[in-house]
């Protein structure tokens, strides 16, 4: 079944072609558009499930096939974590390229050709499930949301195209294919954000949806520029883009590569691409404006799948990042900073989708923080859980918006609990999950990240402190949103209030599924520390499955005091050490000869674990309490506080004036520069051309004086010339 | 410098000049008597026996007539013109050989003033200069008739100079050299050029007649039309110089014809009869050669006079037509004829 791996992205692509083509020709009526789109998405989900089932059974029986057709199939070595590659097409046979010899092997010619390879390993499997699963659910949901829209085939076609591109990205076997997917999703996000291209999205700034789409696309492109540079540098050093070959090359001479400036540079460049795609600090400005798109789009693209591409890329390139602590440190810092900054902005927004958008940016910051401190598994697990509850939140807000006359402004909501109970309960469950209540998925993944950021060798208490603060803010703004929307009296105008009622079942059923997922998914990856608190052994299935793929190898694999080598180190490193409370940062363990203590975390004492557990609860309830104090109740006290906090509120509401900053720092100088160059062009280049014309004309004027028509004058000049000639000759 | 050579040359020059100048009065006498004889009248017989002293009388008359120099003339050229004409005519004699070689106290003296390698060309140059005399005369006297007369005569001389030159060219081709003495020597050895190149002889003769502005080509002086042509304003001595220049031109022309075509100073059948049979050589032979040369020139002089008083005057366009459309093409053909002869190896 594995050999049909490359069919998975093909299904939605076919869907796109069919829906788009027929829709354009006007042949498809509304129901068939929806059925076809959902069918395509579901097909990819079913195919994915079958493929993953076969993959779970191990890849050994495909080894014979791999030997038979080496160019088409490739299977990972027995010891290695399971990985199967299929190359249906030799895409770009480039021929010989010269390597700069930065990898110590000297300048040499290497045959290089880009093939269209798809690969599957546990990381891809997980992402496949997330993308195709949630994608299909959102397809279902958007049937209800888009009901009645004319020409909606365009929406479904783009959605299918997005699915195809995202699956290509996830299944990519080398950087080239990944980049195709990377650009594809960027394109689809542009198309879908700008779906309502005529509507004005943001009353204050006059930004139309089309502008928002352009903004998203441009910011992504800037990020992609960095990504492309990173790719090319990689090519020039290693001569290949294939992930497995890269990993083997780096791990092979890991002593040489550990800490090398080149790898750090490449890592930072790739991460710069990721910041564009996953909306991290420098390039996150497009995500809040991306809310201009229809809500299912926001849910699918700007919450669950596309924005996580950055994190997936980091996990995929884990071998490279393990060997460049500098790059990881950058990732961690940027991630933590984004989490904090976005959380603050989220608190002051009135548009429910903007609140969720900032929360997405903040959660992505958490994922980057996790990846930055080496907890790739925790980052991916948070990605998965976040996909569920954020999708549920977005779809919930979508149904609220649909019912409340398509306004996003929470000030016009209030007390919707009575009219929309299902939306309310699913929204509440997801909010509890995201805020990090114990049994729910949010707690499991977010707290694992926070724990790792404290105890891992790459982490530091500062990161942990800011992370926890951000977590607190998260619960505050989420409950603020809940209270403003569902509690208190209804503030929406009369005509809206009459027809307030629950969304159709097709939407609510999806909400319920997602809410259940958000609640239960956490149990798949219960962090070791937590499970130990309850005296239960390590039941972290997620860690067990995913760790080998993203584990560090070579020099970086740190055998912490005798615990065995790079084989699967069980997550539950119990370690009885010192007193309760925050385990003080263990002295930097001396670096063993040849080894760098990086990967393993220090083994937090039981009391430390307990402390963290309690702290998580405390943070959750403070956020809840504050929100309840400010916003619950008939007359929200927040308005009373407003005058005194006027400056802070305005600052946060205006998103720290970042957009204005960019405008002044980047766009204005750019215009000034172009004005300058146009002036230069006008005056110098055109000037030069006109100059030559002017000189010719001038010389014409001068020579005219000689043409007196009088023969004797001609004779005179004739003689003068003769004399000159003679003089020159005789000299 | 070889003193002997200088003295010999001076003597020769003096000899030639005296002979030629003295020949002019004789010629005038011959002309007057000849024309009279032809017109069945007596001619001058009062002054001296048979009017022999008549030319002397004319000479004296010319000498003592009042030399009127009209005020409106351009004096320098007015005065220079007759001199140029006279000198140019005389100059031609420098290259004409009139005799063999004299042996005087052991030194040979060739009876030619200047034995130039380009002798014939020198002759052409000298006759060319003659034209200036006439032109200047016409222009200097500053009146329409003399100007037109001068123009006409110079136009005539220029066109006939062409045919003269071509005729000369044919002889030079035939003879293969420009040195007059060599041409004569060839004719002594072989036949006279007049026989193989008879047409050239005729052309040269006619052109020579035209060159001297003698009847029938004497349009410029035609009394009826242009008063007296270019020398209307001249009187006494200057007029006589023109008059003498004309006669000298006649002598030069005939000398040229005799040298090129009638073997110059060559005695008829010189090799066979005189040197062979009579065994003459040295000075005696030279004197005889001189005599033969003079006789031939005399014959042509008589021919001039004879033609003048028999043929009617040409109209100017007839004159020009004869010159340009008949003589020149004929001369060109003759040049071809001469080169053919050379090609066939006819000359000795």
């Amino acid at each position, binding site marked *: 079944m594995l050999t049909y791996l490359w069919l998975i992205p093909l299904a939605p692509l076919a869907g796109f072609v069919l829906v788009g083509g027929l829709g354009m020709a006007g042949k498809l009526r509304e129901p068939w558009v929806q059925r076809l789109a959902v069918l395509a998405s579901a097909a990819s989900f079913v195919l994915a499930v079958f493929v993953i089932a076969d993959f779970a059974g191990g890849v050994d029986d495909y080894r014979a096939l791999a030997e038979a057709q080496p160019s088409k199939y490739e299977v990972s070595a027995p010891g290695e974590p399971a990985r199967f590659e299929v190359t249906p097409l030799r895409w770009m046979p480039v021929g010989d390229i010269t390597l700069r010899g930065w990898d110590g092997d000297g300048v040499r010619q290497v045959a290089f050709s880009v093939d269209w390879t798809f690969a599957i390993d546990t990381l891809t499997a997980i992402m496949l499930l997330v993308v195709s699963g949630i994608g299909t659910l959102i397809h279902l949901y958007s049937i209800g949301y888009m009901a009645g829209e004319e020409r909606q085939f365009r929406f479904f076609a783009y959605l299918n195209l997005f699915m195809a591109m995202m699956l290509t990205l996830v299944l990519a076997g080398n950087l080239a294919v990944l980049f195709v997917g990377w650009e594809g999703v960027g394109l689809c996000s542009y198309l879908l954000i700008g779906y309502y291209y005529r509507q004005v999205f943001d009353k204050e700034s006059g930004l139309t949806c089309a502008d928002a789409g352009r903004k998203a696309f441009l910011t992504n492109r800037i990020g992609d520029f960095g990504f492309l540079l990173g790719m090319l540098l990689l090519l020039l050093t290693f001569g290949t883009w294939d992930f497995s070959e890269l990993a083997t090359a780096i791990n092979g001479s890991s002593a040489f590569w550990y800490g090398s400036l080149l790898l750090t540079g490449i890592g930072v460049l790739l991460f710069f691409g990721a910041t564009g795609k996953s909306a991290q600090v420098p390039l996150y400005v497009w995500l809040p404006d991306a809310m201009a798109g229809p809500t299912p789009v926001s849910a699918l693209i700007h919450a669950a799948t596309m924005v996580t591409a950055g994190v997936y890329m980091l996990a995929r390139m884990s071998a490279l990042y393990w060997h460049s602590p500098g790059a990881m440190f950058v990732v961690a810092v940027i991630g933590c900073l984004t989490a904090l900054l976005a959380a603050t902005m989220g608190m002051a927004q009135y548009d429910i989708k903007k609140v969720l958008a900032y929360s997405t940016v903040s959660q992505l910051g958490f994922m980057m923080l996790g990846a930055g401190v080496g907890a790739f598994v925790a980052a991916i697990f948070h990605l998965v859980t976040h996909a569920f509850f954020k999708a549920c939140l977005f779809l919930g807000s979508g149904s609220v918006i649909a019912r409340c006359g398509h306004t996003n402004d929470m000030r016009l909501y209030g007390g919707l609990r009575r009219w929309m109970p299902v939306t309310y309960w699913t929204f509440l469950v997801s909010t509890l999950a995201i805020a990090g209540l114990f049994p729910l998925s949010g707690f499991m993944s977010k707290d694992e990240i926070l724990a790792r950021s404290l105890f891992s060798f790459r982490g530091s208490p500062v990161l942990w402190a800011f992370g926890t603060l951000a977590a607190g803010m998260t619960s505050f703004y989420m409950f603020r949103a809940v209270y403003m929307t569902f509690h208190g009296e209804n503030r929406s105008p009369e005509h809206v209030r009459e027809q307030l009622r629950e969304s159709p079942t097709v939407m609510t059923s999806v909400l319920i599924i997602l809410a259940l997922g958000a609640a239960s998914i956490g149990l798949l990856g219960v962090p070791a520390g937590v499970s130990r608190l309850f005296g239960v052994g390590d039941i972290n299935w997620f860690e067990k499955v995913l760790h080998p793929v993203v584990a560090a190898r070579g020099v970086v694999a740190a055998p912490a005091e005798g615990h065995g080598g790079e084989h699967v180190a069980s997550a539950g490193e119990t370690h009885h050490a010192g007193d309760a409370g925050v385990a003080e940062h263990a002295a930097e363990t001396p670096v063993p000869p040849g080894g760098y203590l990086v990967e393993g975390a220090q083994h937090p004492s039981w009391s430390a674990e307990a402390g963290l557990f309690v702290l998580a609860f405390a943070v959750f309830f403070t956020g809840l309490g504050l929100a309840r104090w400010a916003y619950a109740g008939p007359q929200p006290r927040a308005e009373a506080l407003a005058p005194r906090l006027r400056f802070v509120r305005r600052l946060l509401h205006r998103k720290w004036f970042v957009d204005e900053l960019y405008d002044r720092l980047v766009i204005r100088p750019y215009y000034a520069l172009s004005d300058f160059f146009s002036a230069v062009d006008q005056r110098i280049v055109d000037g030069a051309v006109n100059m030559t014309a002017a000189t010719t004309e001038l010389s014409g004027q001068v020579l005219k004086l000689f*043409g*007196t*028509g*009088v*023969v004797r004058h001609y004779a005179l000049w004739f003689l003068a010339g003769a004399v000159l000639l003679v003089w020159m000759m005789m000299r | 410098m070889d003193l002997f050579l200088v003295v010999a040359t001076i003597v020769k020059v003096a000899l030639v000049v005296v002979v030629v100048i003295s020949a002019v009065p004789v010629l005038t006498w011959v002309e007057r008597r000849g024309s009279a004889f032809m017109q069945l009248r007596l001619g001058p017989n009062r002054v001296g026996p048979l009017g022999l002293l008549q030319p002397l009388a004319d000479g004296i008359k010319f000498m003592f007539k009042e030399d009127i120099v009209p005020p409106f003339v351009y004096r320098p050229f007015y005065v220079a013109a007759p001199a140029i004409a006279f000198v140019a005519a005389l100059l031609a004699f420098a290259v004409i050989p009139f005799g063999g070689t004299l042996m005087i106290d052991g030194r040979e003296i060739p009876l030619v003033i200047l034995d130039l390698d380009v002798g014939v060309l020198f002759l052409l140059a000298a006759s060319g200069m003659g034209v200036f005399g006439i032109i200047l005369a016409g222009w200097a006297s500053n009146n329409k008739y003399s100007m037109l007369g001068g123009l006409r005569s110079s136009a005539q001389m220029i066109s006939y100079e062409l045919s003269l030159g071509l005729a000369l060219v044919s002889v030079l081709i035939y003879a293969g050299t420009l040195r007059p003495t060599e041409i004569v020597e060839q004719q002594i050895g072989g036949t006279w050029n007049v026989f193989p190149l008879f047409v050239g002889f005729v052309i040269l003769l006619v052109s020579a007649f035209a060159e001297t502005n003698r009847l029938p080509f004497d349009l410029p002086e035609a009394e009826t039309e242009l008063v007296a042509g270019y020398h209307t304003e001249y009187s006494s001595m200057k007029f006589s110089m023109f008059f003498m220049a004309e006669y000298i031109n006649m002598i030069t022309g005939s000398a040229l014809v005799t040298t090129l075509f009638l073997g110059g100073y060559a005695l008829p059948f010189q090799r066979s009869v005189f040197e062979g049979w009579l065994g003459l050589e040295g000075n005696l032979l030279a004197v005889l050669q001189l005599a033969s040369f003079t006789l031939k020139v005399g014959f042509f002089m008589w021919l001039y006079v004879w033609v003048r008083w028999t043929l009617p005057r040409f109209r100017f366009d007839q004159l020009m037509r004869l010159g340009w459309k008949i003589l020149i093409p004929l001369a060109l053909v003759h040049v071809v004829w001469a080169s053919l002869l050379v090609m066939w190896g006819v000359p000795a």
Partner: protein
Amino acid sequence: MVGDPGPYLLLATILFVIGAFGVISRRGAITILMSIELMLNSANLALVAVSRFLPAAGQGAGIPDGQVIGFLVLAIAAAEVAVGLAIVIAMFRLRESVDVDLARLLRW
């Protein structure tokens, strides 16, 4: 026998300069033509003078080339005068005078 062409060439130069001066300073077409003849003549003089003193093939000095070229120059000069005079006559017909300054048709 003056040994080398120096003085002759100097004379040729002087004649040439006088000719050139004539061409420039005079207004009469005929005079200009004559000055041109003067210049050509001086060129001939120089040619012959130099060729006279160049070493000959055999012994002695003097090669015919100068004279041959001189001859050609003569021919060309003659042709030039012929055409020149024709032009002068044509001009005279138009302008009733041979003053060169009147021939200003080329000036716009």
